């Protein structure tokens, strides 16, 4: 018997009991849909992180105060190991440095008239614009002179601007940060939200203003160092580390009291996290696919029992054992393939729904779709084999007598 004939028989058997076929395939539908949607979420998160890290600027080394590790970033302000002298030394001594920007950021309350909001106050140097590739869309950034004079000027992010000045021109307005009045001189261009932070929910002020007037500190939290070419990155990173160790008088056995990360490092860390997440989510979804396969096996066993007489008739008119085996195997594979195809639709629509309603970024990959589908077919074969073998091993005489 040909595969085509087996397929027609399988379709007829499925059509004879459409509700049962649908419910049987449901496990696979959910399984495939879940795998596709979960992997899409994982990949989407990864893409978002990649874009975010790349948006930092190119050939960037970031120096954090203290030992920074993902998952246990210290709250408050315990680490005070970096200061402006370090910044100036790095600028002078590290080869290949084309720009450097220091930053001191903290959450604080900002008030405009009756509105008040907690947002991030970032004290930065004017070079920040070039180093981080992040500039005002309207108005202007503060100057070196304003930096030196600890001017009370602020450039607001898009989110803050939308919140405070939906109808009014932000330039020239007065806002209060920690009770001190600042003049808004610019609005930053939109960077967009990522899955982790809203990069537009921020107010920039001169670093010196933030240190002295707002928070009463003399250190900085972060130093961004721009290097001319990516080839010079490793050398620059090494020189920078040596310089800071010397300046901080660290003995050889002591650990660094700062952390240097390149974009590649950051990217790698986040990528491995999202990779783990993708595998985990996909794995959980795959379990539901296996449960779906068990559902198929269950119904196929019932079907073989119900159709024992049919099997007997087919054997009497000349069906070989492998014809019967093929017939039931094709039927279970048809169920899983049908379920798999519907599952792809569910997965794709589900991913889009997640993006739309939960706002998570998702990324559909052909690879994941093919993987889920192949797995579904494999499940159909694996769990269809035992029922099909049971059917093929029936004794024709017993099968013909079956009521």
């Amino acid at each position, binding site marked *: 018997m040909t595969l085509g004939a087996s397929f027609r028989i399988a379709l007829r058997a499925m059509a004879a009991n459409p509700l049962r076929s649908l419910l049987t395939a449901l496990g696979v539908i959910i399984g495939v849909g879940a795998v596709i949607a979960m992997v899409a979420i994982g990949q989407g998160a990864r893409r978002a992180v990649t874009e975010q890290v790349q948006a930092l600027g190119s050939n960037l080394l970031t120096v954090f105060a203290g030992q920074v590790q993902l998952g246990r970033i210290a709250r408050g302000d315990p680490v005070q190991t970096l200061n402006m002298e370090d910044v100036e030394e790095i600028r002078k001594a590290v080869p290949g440095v084309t720009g450097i920007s220091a930053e001191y950021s903290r959450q604080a309350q900002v008030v405009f008239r009756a509105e008040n909001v907690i947002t991030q106050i970032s004290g930065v140097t004017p070079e920040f614009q070039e180093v981080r590739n992040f500039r005002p869309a309207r108005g202007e950034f503060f100057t070196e002179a304003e930096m030196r004079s600890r001017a009370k000027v602020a450039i607001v992010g898009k989110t803050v601007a939308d919140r405070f000045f939906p109808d009014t021109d932000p330039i020239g307005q007065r806002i209060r940060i920690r009770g001190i009045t600042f003049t808004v001189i610019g609005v930053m261009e939109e960077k967009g939200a990522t899955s982790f932070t809203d990069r537009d929910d921020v107010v920039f002020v001169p670093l010196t203003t933030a240190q002295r007037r707002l928070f009463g500190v003399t250190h900085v939290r972060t130093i961004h160092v721009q290097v001319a070419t990516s080839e010079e990155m490793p050398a620059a990173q090494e020189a920078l580390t040596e310089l800071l160790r010397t300046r901080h008088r660290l003995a050889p056995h002591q650990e660094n009291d700062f952390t240097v990360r390149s974009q590649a490092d950051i990217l790698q860390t986040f990528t491995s996290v999202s990779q783990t997440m993708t595998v985990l989510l996909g794995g959980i979804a795959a379990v539901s696919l296996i449960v779906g396969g068990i559902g198929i096996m269950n119904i196929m066993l019932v079907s073989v029992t119900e159709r024992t007489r049919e099997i007997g008739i087919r054997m009497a008119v*000349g069906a070989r054992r492998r014809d019967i085996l093929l017939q039931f195997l094709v039927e279970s594979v048809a169920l899983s393939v049908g379920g798999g195809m519907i599952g792809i639709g569910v997965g794709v629509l589900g991913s889009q729904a997640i993006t739309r309603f939960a706002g998570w970024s998702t990324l559909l990959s052909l690879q994941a779709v093919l993987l889920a589908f192949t797995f579904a077919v494999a499940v159909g074969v694996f769990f269809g084999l035992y029922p099909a073998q049971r059917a093929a091993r029936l004794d024709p005489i017993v099968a013909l007598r079956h009521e």
Partner: protein
Amino acid sequence: MSLIAVRNVEKIYRMDGVEVHALRGISLAVEPGEFVAIMGPSGSGKSTCMNILGCLDRPTTGTYLLDGTDVTTLGDEALARMRNRRLGFVFQSYNLLPRTPAIENVELPLVYAGTPDRRARARAALDSVGLGPRARHLPTQLSGGEQQRVAIARALVNSPAIILADEPTGNLDSSTAGEIMDLLDRLSQQGITIVLVTHEADIAARARRHVQFRDGRIVSDEPVRARTVAPQGPVQP
């Protein structure tokens, strides 16, 4: 050479450790074109004999040559091929596939034979039993007599050497039974060998040879001398 040559066949079933001798050494030869009726009370071994003749079962001992081939030595696959090419079955309960149109039921042996042009051959077989117009009907839409005609068309479609009919009229009223027997008569006239199991004397009377079973043995095997009816072509009702 005999079409069917059964020699010293025994069949022993083991049920819960007890041996049941269904056949206690039977020998039977059927020549091409014969119309044989097998009779006997239930439990006499006639069904077991039919299963063996139909290549659905193998004898415990003894030999069975079907058209010169010793089928007792064949494997499952070769037996399936035998059933498909050389034998046609007609059952008491018709045994049509449910939810499957008559024409596709008739096609079934051709599907397993891999024959091309299946639809046309199936239609010809249905026409020959007078059911051409009902080809698309489902078994549930056909009367008992019509279902049995479909079953006969299915038995015929692969041009078998032998038709094995196990109580083919057992579920039919006497006039419908008569029509089915007329059909088998006609096939016999055309040279097809027919082996029929029945316990009804008037059905057996249509055959030209009676084989009587009792307790797993053949107790009598004789030709029917005086034929009361000698139909020529289709019988008029």
